[in-house]
């Protein structure tokens, strides 16, 4: 019995260490965003703010154009999510419910989109967008973001549709419903949890994206991650404002991610774990 107590102590200490390391950079970011600039440069560093200020948030939002960039990010992420669900949910249903030739190849192609380096798509897309005069528009970002959100929506929703018993479809058909009515009235409401999870994933991925936005946007549609990186030019870095911007970007994502944390592994391992 006595031997177990040190074991539990060690177990607890290691868990606490993991917890501390996982949270620390996030804590440090939020802390720096509400510290005064003098305290940020203080040595030794302070782990609890002596004085709390929201000045950095005010400057970032009102003077550095972070406000509009957050709105841009929101518009792009919501529009991408809307179209990803609109196109992806029926496709997932089709894949889950029907057998057809080349189904395996189609499925593999959907999933293989997870592997492709965005730079491979960004180069040609830049040339296309430039010749169509679509640089710095929401449309071009939404289209690009569909390349990674659409597969994930199909991946998660197909799971959900498979879990709905086929007998329900057949009963509805006997009642005289058309195929589309069966999908819209029977299957879709039952698949709502899966659709919600995939919507959150596509929102998070679009919200976090940097490379495409960096290449495709200028001043008009600049998204928040791009705005955050533009702070990094110059010599004296305004750390308070940078971390305030970081906090504004990350906080909503973490809240959303906690909502889907049970599905996080499945969402992130798309295609690689059965």
């Amino acid at each position: 019995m006595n031997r177990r107590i040190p074991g539990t102590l060690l177990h607890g200490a290691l868990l606490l260490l993991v917890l501390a390391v996982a949270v620390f950079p996030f804590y440090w970011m939020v802390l720096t965003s509400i510290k005064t600039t003098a305290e940020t440069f203080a040595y030794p560093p302070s782990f609890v703010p002596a004085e709390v200020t929201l000045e950095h948030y005010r400057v970032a939002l009102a003077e550095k154009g972070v406000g509009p960039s957050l709105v841009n990010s929101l518009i792009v992420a919501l529009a991408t999510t809307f179209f990803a669900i609109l196109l992806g949910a029926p496709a997932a249903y089709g894949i889950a419910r029907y057998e057809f030739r080349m189904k395996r190849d189609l499925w593999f192609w959907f999933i293989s989109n997870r592997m492709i380096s965005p730079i491979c798509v960004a180069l040609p897309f830049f040339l296309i967008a430039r010749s169509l005069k679509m640089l710095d528009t929401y449309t071009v970002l939404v289209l690009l973001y569909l390349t990674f959100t659409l597969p994930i929506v199909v991946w998660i929703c197909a799971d959900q549709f498979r879990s709905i018993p086929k007998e329900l479809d057949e009963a509805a058909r006997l009642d005289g419903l058309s195929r589309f009515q069966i999908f819209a009235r029977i299957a879709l409401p039952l698949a709502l949890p899966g659709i919600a999870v995939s919507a959150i994933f596509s929102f998070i991925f679009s919200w976090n994206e940097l490379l495409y936005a960096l290449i495709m946007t200028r001043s008009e549609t600049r998204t928040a991650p791009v705005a955050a990186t533009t702070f990094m030019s110059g010599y004296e870095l305004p750390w308070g404002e940078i971390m305030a911007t970081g906090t504004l970007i990350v906080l909503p994502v973490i809240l959303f991610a906690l909502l889907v944390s049970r599905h996080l592994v499945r969402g992130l391992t798309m295609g690689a774990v059965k």
Partner: protein
Amino acid sequence: MARGRRERWAPLAFIAPAVITLLAVGLYPLILAVITSFRQYLVTKPRAPRDFVGFDNYATVLTDPTFWESLGRTFEFLLLVLPIELALGLGIALLLHKPGLGLLRTLTRVSLVIPLATTFAVVGLVGRLIFNREFGVINWFLSLLGLPPVEWLGQPATAFAAVAIMDIWQWTPFVALVLLAGLTMVPPEIEEAARLETKSPWKILRHIQLPYLLPGITAVLILRTADILKLFDLVFVMTRGGPGSATELISVYIQRIGFRVFDQGIASAQAILLLILTIILSRLYIRLVYREVEA
């Protein structure tokens, strides 16, 4: 008969919109990239004729030492972070799987979501803050151990290490959660029976738990390899590939050629080679690891 035909076309109506969209925004640009890769294409000279140059771009890329260096650097990075992430991830998964301390375990598991959800670009920003030479908190931790301050982002080797540390911070939780999912698949009665047989956690890991962990490990190998070949945001924000080219991984290098040197022909050839490499590697992994499972 009519019904049979309708049956055959039904899936098409559901699937076609998504497939057409993905073909248009995913596959068509890739085809265009292949075409561009055979052309001379400088964005800075819009009037210049875009002649087809055959395999010239590919020849240039394949004989370009900088390309090979950035590719080699990418694999060095992979070989540095992947074993650490796997080892730490397995350790954390075992800690979270071990019974007892319910609340703390749940809290720790939930906290792993934070690194995963943090915007990659913001991870880079935080990295620049905590690895700062003068007021960075990492150097303060080092001073507690009696170590001198390090100019982390100013020297090639330490900048490489700093980027690696941020990547490890962000992705070890992913490995831990994947492996934890594997551990919970082990039937509890088998695990308990084994614990009666042996006291050695190593033996239980090797003989009971490992078979359930292998699919997850394969997934981690494939996805982390693909992700590091893609890795851009973190490096771009934290070091821009510097100092010099010490942290210029392959995706950052291609971005520089395409959008700062503006040679789209060369950059496209590089991107296509990267794509081919990614496909080969993921196929190879699947083959190797699944053979091991069957044997």
